[in-house]
């Protein structure tokens, strides 16, 4: 059973349908106790960082996620769900994240080095992965995935950046992770076959 973290903001419907499409059974998790019995966690995300973290704390989901990750449960963070894995974010202020991976969430500079590029970074972009044999990310190496974001992750340790993409002259982390943790900046549930292939690989991942 996949725990789908529902903090009342994200587009839960699309992620649910995409996971079901690749053979997953999904349980929507709104509070810490709902996590019991779940073997995988998907943490999707749309909305503001501060609101997301506030809701997680209110429902004691922050501690529950820490426990589940420490127990080895594979976790996939999507977009804001990836960003929340880091230490802090500078979106509309400075707010603490889950700190499961050391690093910060920073905005694209308003004047991108390469002209003619817009913020948000919106659309299909290439993803290049660091380790072509990564059991989940190998499904999407050199494929295009759908991105929508104005902020990106900067992990403190190079080894935690598992894939990169580039927008307006800025190279950024398209995927981060360590051990049983994986975060992706793009939306697999909106990336047609490439996204479905990644979700399929995640459901079979035994880190």
């Amino acid at each position, binding site marked *: 059973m996949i725990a789908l973290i529902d903090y009342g903001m994200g*587009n839960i*419907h699309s992620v649910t349908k995409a996971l079901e499409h690749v053979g997953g059974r999904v349980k929507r998790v709104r509070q810490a106790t709902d996590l019991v019995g779940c073997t995988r966690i998907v943490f999707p995300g749309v909305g503001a960082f501060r609101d997301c973290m506030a809701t997680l704390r209110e429902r004691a989901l922050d501690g529950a996620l820490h426990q589940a990750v420490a127990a080895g449960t594979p976790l996939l963070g999507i977009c804001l769900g990836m960003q929340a894995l880091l230490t802090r974010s500078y979106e509309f202020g400075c707010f603490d994240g889950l700190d499961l991976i050391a690093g910060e969430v920073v905005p694209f500079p308003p004047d991108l080095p390469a002209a003619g590029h817009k913020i948000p970074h919106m*659309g299909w*972009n290439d993803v290049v992965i660091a380790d072509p044999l990564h059991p989940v990310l190998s499904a999407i190496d050199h494929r*295009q995935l759908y991105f929508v*974001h104005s902020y990106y992750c900067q992990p403190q340790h190079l080894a935690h950046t598992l894939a990169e993409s580039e927008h307006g002259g800025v190279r950024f982390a398209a995927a981060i992770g360590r051990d049983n943790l994986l975060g992706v900046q793009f939306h697999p549930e*909106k990336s047609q076959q490439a996204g479905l292939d990644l979700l399929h690989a995640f459901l079979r991942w035994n880190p």
Partner: protein
Amino acid sequence: MALSKRIIPCLDIAHGRVVKGVQFIDLIDAGDPVEAAIRYDQQGADELTFLDIRASHEDRDTLYGMVREVAAHVFMPLTVGGGVKSLDDVARLLHAGADKVSINSAALQRPALVEEAALRFGSSTIVVAVDAKRVDDHWECFTHGGRKSTGINAVAWARQMSDAGAGEILLTSMDADGTRNGYDIPLTRAVVDAVSANVVASGGVGSLAHLVEGLTAGGADAVLAASIFHFGEHTIAEAKQALASHAIPVRR
């Protein structure tokens, strides 16, 4: 690595069905929205836009149901617009499975709605549709399918909406719409140069060369078209081939 330019088929919706008309009149039934979405998904469309052109209040649940069905069958970005009047309307469409919600006349009536929506749901989910028509030496925002002028300068308005937090401007030339003579390129270029948001060019596509023009001369981030795709004149793959042959980055 490069961000691809997007090709977006647009489906006009009335009472939960796909319809096609010329300049908002003479509507013909063009099929089931879920079937159309699946067809475009298989062809490799980059995104889909649904505009509820009737947008009557009694039909709202039909629209939400349609969005939910489409989102359960295709896994690609969906923009939905038509009759969006409040934050609650935006929330319902996002929950039904829309990724972006397009706001049109409600923004003209109350511009603060766009800022409130962007703050609450994020800029990336908010599109402002601008229907522009040339008046003397400039363009003005029109409502009621291009029949009523608001007197508002369309380029300045697009800029104001982008500054208010709209992540994307869906720019339709009411002069070009339905003519099949191509996008209004000067209008597209003027808006692209004025805003920081993404710009989707719309209205007037009659050939694949028009798509190329919208992205090169017009400078748009994405091109929207309806009839050339609906009636099987061209496939998305042919459109991408045409773009690629002009060195425009596309997703293959």
